[in-house]
C-alpha cells in the first residue's frame, strides 16, 4: 500500500516535471497516472495524494488558475516537488 501511494505520487510529480514549467490539467494528470496504476486510483486515493502533495507549508505542487476556464484545475511542480521526486 505504501509502495502504491509512493508510486502514485511519483507519477504525479514525474508528469508535472515533463511539462517544462507549464501547468497540467488535473484530469490529464490523473489519466496519465491511471494509465500505469492497476487498479486505477480511487477518488479517495487521488484526493489524499493531491492533498499530500499540495499541502502547506512546502507544497510539492501548486494550483495555477486557467485563463480560459475557471473550473479547470491545473497544477505545476515546485522546487520542493522536484526535491521529493529525486528522492522517490
Amino acid at each position, binding site marked *: 500500500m505504501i509502495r502504491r501511494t509512493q508510486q502514485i505520487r511519483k507519477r504525479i510529480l514525474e*508528469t508535472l516535471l515533463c511539462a517544462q514549467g*507549464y501547468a497540467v490539467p488535473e*484530469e490529464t494528470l490523473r489519466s496519465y497516472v491511471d494509465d500505469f496504476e492497476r487498479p486505477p486510483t480511487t477518488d479517495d486515493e487521488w484526493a489524499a495524494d493531491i492533498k499530500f502533495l499540495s499541502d502547506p507549508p512546502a507544497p510539492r505542487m501548486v494550483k495555477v488558475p486557467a485563463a480560459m476556464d475557471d473550473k479547470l484545475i491545473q497544477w505545476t511542480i515546485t522546487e520542493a516537488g522536484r526535491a521529493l521526486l529525486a528522492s522517490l
Partner: protein
Amino acid sequence: MQDKEVRSDAKLKNLRPEMLETLWRLRYPEEDGEKLTLEAIAVALPKLVGFSASLSSLSDFFKWLRFKRRMEASAATAAQARLELAKDPNLDPADIERAAQAVFTAEMLEAGNVRAYVALAKLRLAGQQVDLDRRRIELLERKASQADQANEVVNSELGDGEARDRLKTIFRMG
C-alpha cells in the same frame, strides 16, 4: 527483483534525448521502418544502452515516453504561440504567459476534453465579437463624422458645384 526493475526503469528515463529518440524510433518507426516488438527491443537493449530491462519496465517506459513526447510537442506549440504573441506590442508579458499556458492546456486536452475546447472556442468568439463591435463603432463614428461634415457643407454659402464636389469628397464618391 522489484528494486532491479525500478532501477532499470529510472535508468531508461534518464537516457540522453538522442537515445530516447532512437528507442522511440525502434518501437514507432517512420513510414517505411520496421516496428520492433518489446521482446526484440529487450534483446537489443544491452548493446544499445549497456543495461537490460524487463518487458514490463520497457512497456512502462514506452508509455512514459509517449506521454513525455506529447508534453514536449504541446510545450513547443505553446512556445511558438508565445513568440507570435510577443510581436504584438499591445500585449504585456503576463498576457502572453496566460495565452501560452492556454495553448499548452488546450494541446494537452486534445484527447477528448470537450469542455476545455468549448471554453476556448467561447473565448475566441468573445474576441471576435469584441473585434466586430469595434469595427461597428468605427463605422458609426465615420458615418457620424461624414454627416457632420455634410451638414456643414449644406449650411455653408458654397456654390452648388463646389458644394457637390465637397460632398463627393466627404463620402468618397467618384
